[in-house]
C-alpha cells in the first residue's frame, strides 16, 4: 500500500491545508522522468515519517489550476505545507539523504 496520498483539486483543502501534521506535496506528471526517480525516493522516505509528516502527490496534468495556484513552472516540485502555508519549496530531483535533511527540522 502506498504511503503517499493522491490529492485532487477537491480534496486539497482538507487533506493538505487543514491537515494536523505538516504535509509534503509532490507535484508531478506521468511524462516527467525525474518525477519517477523522485517517486522512488518519496516512497522510501515516507515510511520513516509515518505519523509525523504526511506525504501527498498532485498530478499537474489532471489538476492544472492547483499547479498554477502555487506557481509551478518546473516539475517535480515539492512543497511542504504547515498549517495551510508553504514552509519549504524544493524544485527538481532530491536524494533520500538530502530530503531527510530538509524534513528533519519539521518532523517535530
Amino acid at each position: 500500500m502506498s504511503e503517499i496520498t493522491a490529492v485532487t483539486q477537491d480534496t486539497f483543502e482538507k487533506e493538505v491545508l487543514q491537515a494536523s501534521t505538516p504535509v509534503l506535496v509532490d507535484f508531478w506528471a506521468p511524462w516527467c522522468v525525474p518525477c519517477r526517480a523522485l517517486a522512488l525516493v518519496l516512497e522510501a522516505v515516507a515510511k520513516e515519517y509515518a505519523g509525523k509528516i504526511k506525504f501527498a502527490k498532485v498530478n499537474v496534468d489532471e489538476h492544472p489550476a492547483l499547479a498554477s495556484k502555487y506557481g509551478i513552472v518546473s516539475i517535480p516540485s515539492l512543497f511542504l505545507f504547515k498549517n495551510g502555508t508553504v514552509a519549504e519549496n524544493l524544485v527538481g530531483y532530491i536524494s533520500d539523504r538530502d530530503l531527510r535533511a530538509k524534513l528533519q527540522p519539521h518532523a517535530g
Partner: protein
Amino acid sequence: MARECMRHHDLVIIGGGATGMTAGVYAARARMDVLVLEALLPGGQLNNADLIENYPGFPEGIMATDLVELMEKQARRFGVKIERAEVEVLQPRENDFLLQTSAGDICAGAVIVCTGGQHKHLGVPGEREFAGKGVSYCATCDGPLFREREIVVVGGGNTAIDEALFLARFARRVFVVHRRDQLRAEKILQEQAFANPKIEFLWSSVVTEIRGKEFVEGVMLRNLKTGESRLLAAGAVFIAIGMQPTVGFLPDGVARDDFGFIITDRSMRTSAPGLFAAGDVVSGSARQLTTGVGEATIAVLSAQQYLDSTSAKKT
C-alpha cells in the same frame, strides 16, 4: 577488521541501466544468484533519451521510456531482482567482494560494474530547461532529428569533432564553439572538419545561455578575447565537453584510463579478478545501447567462467 555479510550473492551488478538489466537477464537465465543495484531509476541514461531509432528490431523507432519499460518487464519475467541502492565503496577481499551500499553491506563472488557515466554539463541557463528540446549530449542519438537546421556543437575534443562531422551530414550548418583557439581532437579529425564546407569554427568562444520558446532557437555566445556577446540562431545544441564515469566507489587498484574510465580486455575483465565492467563506464566505449548490452552479455559469460573456476578450486 572484517565486516560480516548478512547478504551474499554470487553475482552483483552495479547499475540498472540497459547494460545492467541485460546483464541481469543473462545471469538469471543462467540460473546465477544475481542482484542488480540501481541508485536512481532503472533505465539509466535511457531515461533522458527520446526516440531510439538505431536499436535493432524497431523499424519505426521506439520511445526510450517504452524501451525501459520493456526491459524492466523482461527482467521481471526472469526473476531479476533490481534493488534500489547506491554503492558507496567496493572492496575486493581475499575470496569475495564487499559492497558498502546505502542499503547495507552486500557481499558478492563476482561483480559487474555497469554504472555508466554522466555527460559533463556547461552549467548555463537554458541547458536543463531545453534538455530533450534541442539540447543534447549525443549526436548519434539525436542528430537525424535536426535535418537542414543550424546546429551548435560545444567542445574541442574528439567527441565534439566526431559529432560535428556526423551532424554535418544532416545539418544545414554546424557551428563548433570552442573556448580555446586550438582543438584537442586528433589531427586527422581536425583535418576532416576543417575541410568540411558545412562546419564553421567559432574560436575562443563560450555559450553563455541557451534560448528559445518551446524548443531551442539560439545560443548566446561570448567571445573570450573581445568580450563581445552575440546571439547565434540554432535549432540544436550538442554539448560534447566530456563524460565523467561513475567510479567513485571503485578502489584505486582497479586500472583506469586518464579520464577515469575502467580498462577491460575483450572479455570485459578489469585488472581485479572477479571484477568486470560493461557499457559507458568502460574505457574506449562507443557509448551505444547495442555496445552496452553486448558487453553485458560478455561480462556475464566471463563472470560465470570465473565463478565456476573459483568454486572448482574450493572443492
